[in-house]
Structure formats: structure tokens, C-alpha cells
């Protein structure tokens, strides 16, 4: 197994605090919800190590990064140590001064804002009253100051019927070049609120068809790494492979999803180093105590995770007799852990056979871009 000498990117929960309590937040009530924040000095020291390790990008998340009063000092430390950065935010605390500062660094890849509706009703239903207006204002503030703003739409039960409106709002009214989508995954607070948050099978069918249609209409300006749009594309490909009798698809047949720990690591707000934000329960070490490069190359648990893609899906009783087994990647190990208690298991949430057995149906292939 070829391994980079050091991680390329680090995802940091820079704070455990947030001014909102979104009903599907993956952070709160997960293992990532870990105690108080570290002082800026700790992060600045850590950034020095990232510089020595030639890490090129840091993503700041949380909690809500803009809640930190010392965020400018933290970003200054990233810049000083020859890295670029991105920030994941709910958008509600972004001021003109902060946006101007971010633009002045010339190192900001993007600030991602969560906007889940075309109107307050669908967004605020899960994120709290008044949050839509403030998130949109945050987005406009970034754009006014020349900061690249990305938008992520999390699809849930209260906005799945608003996808057309959301797309029109973001691409036409606001004028974004594109936006990304996901759906509320069974992690953190979402698990607790699953009955009111998570998409039903019928909702997933609707979301997949609508997003494929809209993506085609808007020339591929809707993106997805996970959630209904990504599933629709991948599952249609899997179904085509099955119909054609293909022996295998690239990355199919074993636990290849998603392998982020081959190029990046995560750090919790309390300084614990973990393989991924979605695997926050696995503590590999601690910043400013353990040597990051050594841990990256030699940690037994991390290297075992990297060999996860050698585990064939055919060995799982869950996959027994599945006609898609050689096309499937097993999907996110974090989601698998949350749902089954096992990291080395395919994620049931991403199972095409299960989706079809529960009454789901695939969209028309003609809807693909």
C-alpha cells in the first residue's frame, strides 16, 4: 500500500460551541462532541507542525467556527504556516469585517454556508427561527467581500418538496455558480430526531428524481459527494452494470468507501486526532503531544483502516446473495459504525438492495446529465 509521507489535509473542529442546535447536526451527541475548546496558542503550535509536515490545507468546522472570538488569530496562524483553508459554517455570524479579513488573506479556498430552503419555513424548521435570513445575509456578506462562498443544502423531510425552489433561489436569485447537496445522515442529533428529520424511502425516491432532473436542467450545477443525488448516479450505474452482467465496477466488491484517511486526518475540538470527523470515536493521539508524521505512517489502527479496502463484501452475511455486491463500495465507515457498531461493515443506509426491498425505485436513466 502506497502512502503519502504526511497527510495532505487536516479537518479541525476548531470549537465545540455553536449558536444553533440544528436537529440533524452530526456533531452534537456524537463522539466529536468532546468537551471545551482549546486556546488559540495550542492551535498555533499545531499549525507549526503542520507546516513542517507540508500539509497544504486545513478545514475549520465545529461547532460554528465564527463563534470563536480569536478566529482571526487562528486563521493568521494557518496563513503564516504556508497553508490554505476552508471554513464550514451555518453562516449566521459572519460580519463584513470578518469577511474582509478572510479575503485579505488570499488563502481562503471557500467558506461553506448551509442553506436548506428557498424560504424561512423550510430552512428554519430544522435550524431555528430567524436562521434562514441570517444565513443568506452571511452568504451575501461573503460574496460582497470577494470571499468564495459555497452552499451546502442538507435534504430532510421538511425541505424535500422545496428542492425546485431551493435550486431556483440559489442559482437564479442569488446567482451561485453551483451548490452541493447531502441528506441528513444517521449521526449525532439526527439519530435522536430521525423520525422528523430523515428521508423516508418515498422521500429519497422523490429527492433522487428531482435532483437529477434539476441537475440536468441547470447543466450539472448541482453537486453531491453523498446523499440522494450521489446515490442516484451511483445506483443507476450499479444497476446498469448488473443488467449488462459486468463482473465488477471500479472500487466495487470490497470496503473501499471512502478512504479519506489515506490523504487526511481530523482533529476534535479537544485536540484528539482522529481518522475522520465521521470516526471521531477513534482517538489516534493528541496534538502537540504526539508526532503527527509518525502517527500518520505507523499508527496500527490507522493502517488497519487503510487496509479496510481488502475486506470483500461477499464475506458479510448482510451482503449474501446481493446482485450488486461486485459494484458496491460499502460506503461510509462512520455511518456503518453508527448504524451497526462496526467500522468494518458495509453501511446499511447506502444499500441499494435494501432501498429497493423497502419499496424504493431508481430514477429514469434518461435524467442523467
Amino acid at each position, binding site marked *: 500500500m502506497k502512502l*503519502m*509521507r504526511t497527510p495532505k489535509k487536516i479537518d479541525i473542529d476548531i470549537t465545540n460551541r455553536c449558536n444553533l442546535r440544528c436537529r440533524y447536526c452530526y456533531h452534537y451527541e456524537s463522539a466529536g462532541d468532546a468537551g471545551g475548546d482549546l486556546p488559540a496558542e495550542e492551535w498555533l503550535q499545531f499549525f507549526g507542525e503542520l507546516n513542517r509536515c*507540508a500539509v*497544504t490545507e486545513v478545514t475549520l468546522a465545529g461547532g460554528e467556527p465564527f463563534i470563536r472570538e480569536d478566529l482571526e488569530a487562528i486563521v493568521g496562524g494557518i496563513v503564516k504556516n504556508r497553508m490554505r483553508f476552508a471554513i464550514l459554517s451555518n453562516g449566521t455570524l459572519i460580519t463584513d469585517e470578518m469577511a474582509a479579513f478572510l479575503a485579505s488573506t488570499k*488563502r481562503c*479556498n471557500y467558506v461553506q454556508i448551509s442553506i436548506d430552503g428557498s424560504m424561512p419555513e423550510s430552512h428554519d424548521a430544522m435550524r431555528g427561527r430567524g436562521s434562514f435570513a441570517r444565513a443568506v445575509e452571511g452568504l451575501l456578506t461573503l460574496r460582497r467581500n470577494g470571499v468564495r462562498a459555497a452552499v451546502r443544502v442538507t435534504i430532510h423531510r421538511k425541505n424535500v418538496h422545496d428542492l425546485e425552489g431551493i435550486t431556483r433561489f440559489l442559482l437564479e436569485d442569488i446567482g451561485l455558480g453551483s451548490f452541493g447537496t447531502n441528506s441528513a445522515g444517521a449521526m449525532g442529533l439526527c439519530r435522536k430526531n430521525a423520525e422528523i428529520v430523515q428521508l423516508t424511502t418515498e422521500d429519497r425516491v422523490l429527492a433522487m428524481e428531482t435532483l437529477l432532473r434539476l441537475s440536468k436542467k441547470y447543466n450539472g450545477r448541482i453537486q453531491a459527494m453523498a446523499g440522494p443525488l450521489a446515490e442516484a448516479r451511483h445506483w443507476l450505474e450499479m444497476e446498469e452494470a448488473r443488467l449488462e452482467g459486468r463482473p465488477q465496477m471500479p472500487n466495487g466488491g470490497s470496503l473501499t468507501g471512502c478512504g479519506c484517511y489515506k490523504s487526511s486526518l481530523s482533529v476534535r475540538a479537544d485536540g484528539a486526532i482522529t481518522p475522520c470527523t465521521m470516526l471521531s470515536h477513534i482517538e489516534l493521539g493528541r496534538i502537540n503531544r504526539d508526532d503527527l508524521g509518525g502517527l500518520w505512517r505507523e499508527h496500527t489502527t490507522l493502517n488497519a483502516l487503510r487496509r479496510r479496502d481488502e475486506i470483500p463484501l461477499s464475506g458479510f452475511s448482510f451482503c449474501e446473495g446481493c446482485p450488486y455486491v461486485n459494484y458496491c463500495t460499502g460506503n461510509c465507515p462512520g455511518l456503518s459504525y453508527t448504524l451497526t457498531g462496526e467500522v468494518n461493515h458495509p453501511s446499511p443506509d447506502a444499500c441499494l438492495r435494501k432501498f429497493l426491498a423497502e419499496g424504493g425505485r431508481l430514477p429514469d436513466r434518461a435524467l442523467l446529465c
Partner: protein
Amino acid sequence: MDVKNPIANPLIVLREEFDDWAILFDPDTGNAFGLNPTGVFIWKLLDGKHDADAIVSRLREEADDVPEDAAEHARQFIAALEAQGLVGYEIEQERRTGNGDRG
């Protein structure tokens, strides 16, 4: 002015990845440039103490079958790095006399 030896831009990050290959990453632009193992060797000697000939001499000590025109290739490579802002030169100002500065 006396032009010195080439120096790697200290802002540029050398990320050594697989099999002695690497990328040069410019954090101000986000641009990345791939380097083969010979490029990595040269980059590490862009310290203001070596010119292209000295770098190739060091290369001959470390590697077999270095082509005869390697110094010319090294100069071209360094020029390409310079064009991308990845390499610069320390410049020593001549001590000026008379009123040359004032035209």
C-alpha cells in the same frame, strides 16, 4: 548588480509524496507543480549556495548515467521555476557613487 545563485521561494511548500516524487505547492495561488525525483533533488539545492553547474556536480555524485547536457537541462528547469515565481535570486545592490541615482 551582482546576481547570486538561485534560491527556492521560502513560501513554496515541497510535499514529498510517493516514490521520491513530490509537488510544489504555492499557498497564495493554490497552484501545484509535480516534480520527479531529479526535480526534487535540484529543488533541495536551491539554497543560494549552488548554481546549476554545482547542482549537477552533486547530482553526478549521487546518480549514475547523468547526461552530458544535464547542466543545460537544470538551467532550463530553474528558469521554468523562476517564471512561475517559485525561485528567485538574491540581488546585491552595487554601492553607488556620484549622482547616478539622481539622473
